[in-house]
């Protein structure tokens, strides 16, 4: 495994660990200031403006999401969902022109809430920028296998 692969693998395991431990404020800090968190609502969706998304969030909206998570009034979050996430099948491409790294992985987020397990399967793609020897996230794009299905609430960060 190349140094880059190792570094990306470690970074993504770290991100997953933060999310599973619900260290959401630390997770926010992984992003570039203009970084985006995107869950398309259609397979292969290219346009976030001419088509709805399940989520399409700037720093401010991600912060809002995290604060809502911390808000005791949030009815749907009183269930205190937990996650364990599994990541594999990593493919990495470097795009030297803009000095970013594109990493795509299969991700399974297992969610437990209200006595029930939910499974979210996606191919997730991170556009990463090297920063201080680690990375920052320019774009995290989660392509859910059933993004256009009749889904019920996705309460957690994917």
């Amino acid at each position, binding site marked *: 495994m190349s140094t880059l692969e190792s570094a990306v693998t470690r970074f993504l395991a770290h991100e997953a660990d933060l999310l599973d431990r619900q260290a959401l404020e630390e997770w926010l800090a992984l992003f570039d200031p203009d970084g985006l968190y995107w*869950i398309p*609502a*259609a397979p292969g*969706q290219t346009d976030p*403006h*001419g*088509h*709805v*998304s*399940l*989520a*399409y969030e*700037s720093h*401010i*909206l991600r*912060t*809002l*999401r995290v*604060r*809502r998570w911390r*808000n005791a*009034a*949030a*009815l*749907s*979050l*009183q*269930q205190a969902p937990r996650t364990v996430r599994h990541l594999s099948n990593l493919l990495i491409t470097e795009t030297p022109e803009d000095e970013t790294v594109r990493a795509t992985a299969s991700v399974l987020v297992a969610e437990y809430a209200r006595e029930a397990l939910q499974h979210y399967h996606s191919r997730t793609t991170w556009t990463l920028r090297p920063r201080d020897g680690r990375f920052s996230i320019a774009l995290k794009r989660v392509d859910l296998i059933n993004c*256009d*299905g*009749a*889904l*019920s*609430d*996705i*309460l957690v960060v*994917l």
Partner: protein
Amino acid sequence: MRDPDLEELILPDRVHRRVYTDPHLFTLEMERVFRRAWLYVGHDSQIPEPGDYFATRLGSEPVLIVRQRDGGVRALANRCRHKGMQIAPDGARGRTSSFRCGYHGWLYGLDGALRAFPAAAGYKGAPVRAGHGDFGLDQGARVEAYRGFLFARLHKEGPSLAHWLGPLRSSLDNFVDRAPAGAVEVAGGVFRYRHKANWKFFVENTLDLLHPMVVHQSATRPAAALNAEHPDLSEADARAIAMLLPFEASYDFFEDMGQRGAPFGHGEVGNRLSMHSGYDLDKEYWASMVEAYGQDRAKEILAVSRSNSVLYPSIMFKAPVSLVRVVKPVAVDETVIETWHFRLKGAPDALLARNLHYSTLVNSCAGLVGPDDHEAYQRLQSGLAAQASDWVWLARHPGKEAPDAEGARAGPGSSDLVHRTMFAAWRDYMEAA
């Protein structure tokens, strides 16, 4: 099927919890309400050309909605007349010149007539015949359009669509008039959102102006804080915040929005004032509206801001943000809500983008608003299974209603008038044996 004791279920100021929890009543609803009412099925723009079709459900009944060669639309049975196979899976869509059943190859025309069946000689002496009649897919369902919106009804007899729409015709008009070109089209994708609760909770909730400031605090409080902390929000962020904050407007504001109930259970909230009436007006859009309608008429159109309009029982539409939410009952305690989005023809892309952004924030299953409503529906479902009390109260603002110019009855925004109106219609549908 045994008849329910409707007079014990629906009282003037409350309804019995069984209307939300009894599987037998759900079956009856599918039979009576969802076969007798006009149900929204889609929009002209989804099937522009002859042979365009999609497979959907009218209540629990699978149908094919098909553009005819003469421009009309039919709702054919999506069920082969041979041995009964469902012809197209639910959700299928496309363009075709005929429907071929994939089991034995019976072939139907766009009009549903049986055109051909393989090895036809084998039916000599049997009643099987090409054409309409016992072996065609036309089941007598009615389809009518109003300004491009398609409605279907399984029951042959009943009021015309225009009559049935009644006072809310003007709200559908406003939906379309907001397009500089005077027409809308489906655009921007569809949300399909499943929850484990009776369909009526959603429908009633959309006209319930006492819940947003409570249920959606978890989004509005952080939104307000971020707004205060960041005086220099980007345009997109500022717009998002501006769409969230009205969910926690004052009780007086919601009261002033007003509401009205109409025949057949329809109703709506907001008129001049609504959760959308304070949005910034896009300059380019305004210019195109003025160009299309002249300044006065344009102003008049945009001054109407009916935030949530219900055509009972199947849709809630939001003219100010150009979307339609469709109710798909699955079981007594399971419902799918579809959200369809529309482009105003002649309006700039930015307007569509704003409306889609609204929906992403509010209607997405991963959004900041919808999940808390859904949690409420699901807790209503479990709460109403309790025997502690039998009643759901619709007692707010008793008698506070007055006829309006279009034949509806208007009341204060937080009234239960709209809910009483729904259940009066529900009872009518359920009673007609």
